[in-house]
């Protein structure tokens, strides 16, 4: 047992809603103790895939194992050992924090329930607010309650569906610190997100688009595999330069970042030629830069819109 079994190992998952195929042949592997990011535009099938993994939806095709249990046959066992944090806050707004946690503790048959609840409350700094109604909490505290509820039973796998949507940067930072602390203790995490900084905090990322997984690997692998070149133009003429570069050969993306202009393209030679010419004409300084993960994703999303599927 040198190589432990992956926490998630699913192949060829397919899910259709009516005629629409929402998840198409998705195969996903997440190693134990890994934080795996799940990225993709809205409606790309992230939530559906996560629901398939935790047994909330039945796949139309595909097999796999989650925590060593068969995805199709052992849904009940999987539920017991997985913590799932839904995208929409789905605890009882008319119950207090402590009441919500007691409810969850009961359902997971934790004993003594109050001890588990109190420990979880203090671990996540919720003790002071435990008697507040969940409905009166702000986004950040709701998210913290939801996290508390899904880690209280000490799951081996945590599925987080856009956990930080609508949460302020400080709360987001704290949330991620918490996730890393949990992963350190051996918890496996699959987290979907729209934020690039969050994607970069993952050990591995998976990019899904229109139901298909199209890129997978560590951040640097994904960036490298995208084979993109990036140039930066600096100077006063960048607005003019942006106009001139639009549609120029080799140029795929143009994005102004404050006083600089990022120009990204797949065909390195054509791109360099176009950018060099514009730089000369607009008297801006040209330099090569590292391609960022965001550039890669924009590139992948632009590819989707081309209607290749």
């Amino acid at each position, binding site marked *: 047992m040198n190589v432990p079994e992956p926490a998630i190992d699913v192949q060829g998952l397919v899910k259709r809603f009516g005629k629409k195929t929402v998840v198409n042949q998705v195969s996903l592997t997440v190693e134990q103790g890994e934080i795996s990011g799940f990225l993709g535009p809205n409606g790309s099938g992230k939530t559906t895939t996560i*629901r398939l993994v*935790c*047994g*909330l*939806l*039945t796949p139309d095709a595909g097999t796999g194992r989650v925590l060593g249990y068969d995805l199709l046959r052992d849904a*009940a066992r999987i*539920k*017991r050992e*997985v913590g*799932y944090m*839904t995208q*929409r*806050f*789905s*605890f*009882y*707004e*008319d*119950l207090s924090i402590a*009441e919500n946690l*007691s*409810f*969850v*503790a*009961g*359902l*997971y*048959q934790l*004993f003594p*329930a109050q001890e588990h609840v109190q420990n979880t409350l203090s671990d996540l700094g919720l003790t002071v607010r435990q008697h507040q109604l969940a409905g009166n909490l702000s986004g950040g505290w709701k998210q913290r309650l939801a996290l508390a509820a899904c880690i209280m039973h000490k799951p081996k796998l945590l599925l987080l569906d856009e956990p930080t949507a609508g949460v302020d940067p400080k709360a987001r930072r704290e949330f991620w610190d918490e996730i890393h602390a949990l992963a350190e203790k051996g918890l496996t995490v699959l987290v979907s997100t729209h934020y690039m900084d969050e994607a970069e905090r993952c050990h591995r990322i998976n990019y899904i688009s229109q139901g298909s997984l199209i890129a997978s690997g560590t951040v640097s692998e994904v960036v490298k595999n995208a084979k993109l070149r990036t140039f930066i133009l600096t100077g006063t003429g960048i607005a003019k330069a942006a106009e001139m570069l639009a549609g120029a050969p080799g140029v795929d993306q143009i994005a102004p970042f404050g006083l600089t202009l990022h120009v990204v393209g797949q065909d390195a030679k054509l791109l360099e030629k176009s950018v060099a010419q514009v730089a000369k004409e607009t008297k801006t300084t040209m330099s090569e830069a590292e391609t960022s993960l965001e550039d890669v994703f924009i590139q992948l999303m632009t590819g989707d819109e081309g209607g290749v599927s």
Partner: protein
Amino acid sequence: MRHFFSLRRLYALLVKEAIQMRRDRITFAMMLGVPLMQLVLFGFAINSDPKELPAALVAPTQDRYTRAIVTALELTGYYRFNYVTASAQEAENLIAQGVVSFVVTIPSDFGRRVERGERPQLLIEADATDPAVASGAISTLGTVAANALLHERGAEAEAAERARSQLEVVVHRRYNPEGITQYNIVPGLLGVILQMTMVMMTSMALTRETERGTMENLLAMPVTPLEIMLGKVLPYLVVGAVQVAVVLTAAKLLFNVPFVGTLSLILLGVFVFVLSLVLLGYTISTLSRTQMQAMQLTFFFFLPSLLLSGFMFPYRGMPGWAQVLGEFFPLTHFLRMIRGVMLKGANFETVQAPLAALLLFVLAYAALALLRFRRTLD
């Protein structure tokens, strides 16, 4: 076994429901206030044997025979002569407008015919658009009028002599000799009120979770359909018990409805009935996706069960197919049971058929709900 049913999980569900019920004060107040309000309102308002109905008298001549007839009619309690007129046209207008329910016409030669020993005639026109209104008042009419005339002519003894040789029909109005509507209505109202609140409340049980988004979370946790069902249904059983206590107490104190049968049998019947109702409501909530749909389904069920169960109209008076249809409503069997026990003093053997039917509903609804329960979000 631990995987299919756990008391700890059920307890957690029950505590949660109890807290939610307590916090939703308006609903909670309605669950207890509405039954009492409805019982008082309908208990006093509904009357299937209406009395003191407005009537018009058309009498061109006011002789002693006319007065005798009018007095006799008023003494039956069914007629109240608000209008006395000589014009047939005016009386026609009154009945057409619905101001009076009856027009009693006593012809001008009425007294003369009586005295000559001819056959006098008396016309009573009844507004029979609602058959129930007219029936009681008309049924008593013949004998009352005849007796009044005999009395007025002092010929009672003679008539009695003649009647002795005729056929005598003996009628016993059993279980409710005075024909008090409330004795029949109040136990029925218990069923109707329970049906309305129990089915309505539980039909929201799952759809509310779905609409608030909490269903996704619930399904992701290790809880089984049976536990969810019991967790939703048992709290309402308690609410039902409180409603039953309120209604039965009011029935005794306000309406003085007799409790001829044993209380334990009444309570057993009510328990099985309420159980079938909460399970029916829960089944509805597994069938609908929104609270709106649940509400519509509830009403779709509610009206036929009210009309075909024998609560509003006599069950045995319906055509055969309608009686068959009526058998499919728990309320029908409950009414048979509760009226039997409360008013007739029926024992367990007498009511075991309706009890068995109610038990069958319980099992059928529970099975259907468990089958229909969606374990996933598909």
